[in-house]
C-alpha cells in the first residue's frame, strides 16, 4: 500500500491547485477545499489504521533504494499527527468559508491554506533530512502568502518579523544539514541514525545537533526564540491564526522529536538537559506573557508558547514514558489551540472587538457559547476529566518516574497560573456587563470591513467549533486509545529498530551493532 503515503501529500496539493484553477466562484473554492480535507482525513485514518495493525509503511521515491533515494515513512507518530492535521484542516477550511473576506479568497486563500497542509503532511512523512527542509519551505512560503494576503499595515508589520526570523531559521537548518552531510555522507534519517555514532569527531556532531536545536527551536517558538510568534499571530484572520497556532509550531516540535531521538539520541545528555530547562522557561514565560495582555488573540498566542514548553519537557526527560506524554500533549495541544482560536473568532464576531475592555455580556447574550468557551478553557488548564488533564497527568507521571521534582512543581504551578489569563477572558468577555456604547462606535473596522467579518457567526463558524469540542470531549472521556497510541509512538521513537528495518530492510548486521550498543 505504498500509494497511500504519496496520496496523503498529493490530495492537499491537488486541492490547492483545483481550488484556484477550476473556478473563480468564492463558495465553490471553499467547497473544493473542504472536500479535499475530507478526503485527506479519510486517507489519514486509513493510514493510521494500517500503521497500527501492520507496522510502519515506507515508500522509496523513484525506486531508488533507501540510502540513495528519498524515503517517505509513516510510523505511529506520523500517522497520528496526520490524522490530527487533517481534522484541523477540515475545521479551518469550514470556518474560513464564513470568516475570510471574499477579496482574500479570490487572492488564493484556500490554495495557500492547502499547500500549507501539504507541507505539514510532507514534513511528517519524510524520512530524508533534505526533503524535510524542502517541506519546511513549502510550509513556510505558503504561510508567508497567508500572512500578507489582503494585508493592512499591521499585518505587514507582523509579517516582516515573522518572515525575517523564519528565514534565519531556514538558513540555520540548511547549514546544519550541509554539515551533517559532510560528516556522514548521507541524508537519509534512518541511515544517519546508523552513521552518526560512527563519526569520529563527536564534538562536531554536538555542534550540528545544537544548530538543529536552534533551527527547529525558532520554528517551534522555544525560549528565547519565540518573540516572533506573539508579534505576528494576532494580526491575521482568525482562520489563519488557528491553523498557524495549531500546526506550525508543532511541526517544529515534531522535527525536534524526530532528530533528537533518531539522529542524536540520548547520549548527548547535555542537550536533553538543555531541552528540559528550555521547556521549563518557555512554559513559565508563555503563561506570564498571557497574563500581561488584553487582546484575546494575544493571550491565546502566549498560551501556544506555554504548551510548547510542556512538549519540550517530555522530550527533555527523554524516556519513552515522557515522550508518550509529550505526544499526547501534542495531539491535545493541536486540537485545543485550533478550537480556542476559532472560539476567539466567534467572540470577536459577537463582541465586535478582541480587546477585553471592549467586550462583555456574552454570557447573558449566548449562554451556550459561554459554556463552550468554558469547556475549552478548562481543558487547556487541565481540569479533569477533560483532555488537558490527561496530558498534564501523563507529564507529571513521567516526572515522578524520573524523580524530577522541579518538573512536577513547575507543571502544577504553570497549570494553576494558566487559570488566570483564561479566567480573565471569562470574567471580562463573558461575565461582566457589556460596556456602554460598544459594538458600533468603538470598533473602527465596522465601517471599513466588508462582508462576513461583522455579521454574527453562522453555520460555518459553529460547525467546526462544535465538532472540535466534541472531539475534545471524546478525548477527555475516552483517553485510553490515544494514550495507548502515544505510548506506541513513543516506544517506536525511543527504540528505532522498527523504523530502521522499515527504511533499510537490507542493512547488514555489522551496521546494526553500533546502533544497538548505543541504545
Amino acid at each position, binding site marked *: 500500500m505504498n500509494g497511500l503515503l504519496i496520496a496523503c501529500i498529493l490530495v492537499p496539493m491537488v486541492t490547492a491547485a483545483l481550488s484556484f484553477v477550476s473556478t473563480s466562484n468564492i463558495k465553490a473554492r471553499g467547497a473544493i477545499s473542504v472536500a479535499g480535507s475530507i478526503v485527506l482525513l479519510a486517507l489519514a485514518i486509513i493510514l493510521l489504521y494500517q500503521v497500527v495493525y501492520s507496522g510502519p509503511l515506507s515508500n522509496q521515491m523513484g525506486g531508488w533504494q533507501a540510502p540513495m533515494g528519498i524515503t517517505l515513512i509513516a510510523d505511529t507518530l506520523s500517522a497520528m499527527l496526520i490524522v490530527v492535521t487533517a481534522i484541523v484542516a477540515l475545521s479551518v477550511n469550514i470556518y474560513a468559508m464564513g470568516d475570510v473576506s471574499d477579496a482574500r479568497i479570490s487572492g488564493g486563500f484556500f490554495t495557500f491554506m492547502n499547500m500549507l497542509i501539504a507541507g505539514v503532511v510532507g514534513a511528517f512523512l519524510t524520512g530524508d533530512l533534505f526533503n524535510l527542509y524542502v517541506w519546511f519551505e513549502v510550509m513556510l512560503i505558503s504561510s*508567508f502568502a497567508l500572512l500578507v494576503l489582503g494585508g493592512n499595515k499591521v499585518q505587514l508589520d507582523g509579517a516582516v518579523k515573522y518572515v525575517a526570523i523564519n*528565514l534565519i531559521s531556514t538558513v540555520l537548518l540548511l*547549514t546544519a544539514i550541509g554539515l551533517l552531510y559532510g560528516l556522514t555522507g548521507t541524508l537519509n534519517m534512518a541511515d544517519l541514525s546508523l552513521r552518526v555514532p560512527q563519526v569520529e569527531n563527536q564534538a562536531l556532531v554536538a555542534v550540528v545537533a545544537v544548530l538543529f536545536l536552534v533551527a527547529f527551536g525558532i520554528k517551534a517558538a522555544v525560549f528565547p526564540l519565540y518573540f516572533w510568534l506573539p508579534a505576528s499571530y494576532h494580526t491575521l484572520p482568525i482562520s489563519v491564526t488557528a491553523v498557524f497556532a495549531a500546526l506550525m509550531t508543532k511541526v517544529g516540535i515534531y522535527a525536534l522529536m524526530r532528530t533528537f531521538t533518531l539522529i542524536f539520541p540520548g547520549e548527548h545528555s547535555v542537550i536533553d538537559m538543555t531541552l528540559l530547562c528550555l521547556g521549563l522557561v518557555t512554559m513559565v514565560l508563555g503563561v506570564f506573557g498571557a497574563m500581561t495582555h488584553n487582546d484575546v488573540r494575544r493571550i491565546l498566542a502566549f498560551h501556544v508558547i506555554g504548551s510548547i514548553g510542556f512538549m519540550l519537557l517530555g522530550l527533555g526527560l527523554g524516556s519513552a514514558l515522557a515522550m508518550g506524554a509529550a505526544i499526547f500533549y501534542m495531539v491535545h495541544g493541536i486540537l485545543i489551540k485550533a478550537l480556542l482560536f476559532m472560539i476567539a473568532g466567534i467572540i470577536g464576531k459577537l463582541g465586535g472587538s478582541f480587546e477585553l475592555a471592549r467586550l462583555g455580556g456574552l454570557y447573558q447574550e449566548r449562554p451556550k457559547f459561554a459554556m463552550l468557551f468554558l469547556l475549552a478553557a478548562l481543558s487547556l488548564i487541565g481540569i479533569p476529566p477533560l483532555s488537558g488533564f490527561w496530558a498534564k497527568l501523563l507529564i507529571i507521571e513521567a516526572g515522578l518516574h524520573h524523580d524530577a521534582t522541579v518538573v512536577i512543581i513547575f507543571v502544577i504551578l504553570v497549570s494553576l497560573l494558566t487559570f488566570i489569563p483564561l479566567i480573565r477572558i471569562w470574567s471580562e468577555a463573558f461575565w461582566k456587563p457589556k460596556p456602554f456604547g460598544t459594538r458600533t462606535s468603538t470598533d473602527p473596522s465596522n465601517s471599513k470591513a466588508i462582508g462576513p467579518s461583522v455579521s454574527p457567526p453562522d453555520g460555518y463558524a459553529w460547525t467546526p467549533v462544535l465538532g472540535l469540542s466534541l472531539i475534545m470531549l471524546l478525548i477527555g472521556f475516552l483517553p485510553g486509545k490515544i494514550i495507548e497510541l502515544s505510548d506506541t509512538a513513543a516506544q517506536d521513537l525511543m527504540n528505532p529498530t522498527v523504523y530502521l528495518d522499515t527504511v533499510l530492510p537490507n542493512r547488514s548486521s555489522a551496521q546494526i551493532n553500533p546502533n544497538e550498543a548505543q541504545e
Partner: protein
Amino acid sequence: MEILLSLLVGVLMSVSVWMMLSRNLVKFLFGLVLISNVANLIIFKVGGLTVGAPPLIVDGDSLQYANSLPQALVLTAIVIGFGLVSFTLVLALKAYQAIGTVDVDEMTLAEQRHDDPEDQEKSS
C-alpha cells in the same frame, strides 16, 4: 582550494551576521541574501571538491568522478532561496510603502500596547 573556500565562508558569514544585526531592514535583507548563499557554499564545500572530474560517468570505468549530490542540493537550495528572497524584497517594499520606514525600531504597529485604533483592526 578547500581552505580558500572555508575562509570565504567564514568571512561572508561574519559579514552577513553583522549586516543582519542592523536596524535597517534593507541592510538586514542584504545580510539575509548573503547568508543564504553562505549556507549553499557550506554544502558545496563539505560535499568535497573534486577538480576536473565529471559528476556523471558515461562508460562506467572512469575512476575519477565528482559527487553530484551536493550540487543537486545546492541547486535546490538556490531555487528555494531565490524565491524566498524575492518574496521578502517585495514584502519589505510593501511594508515600507505602508508603514513609511525601514527602521525596525519604528515598526511597532503590530505590538502596540495601548488602545490604538490601528491595533483594533478586525481580523478580516
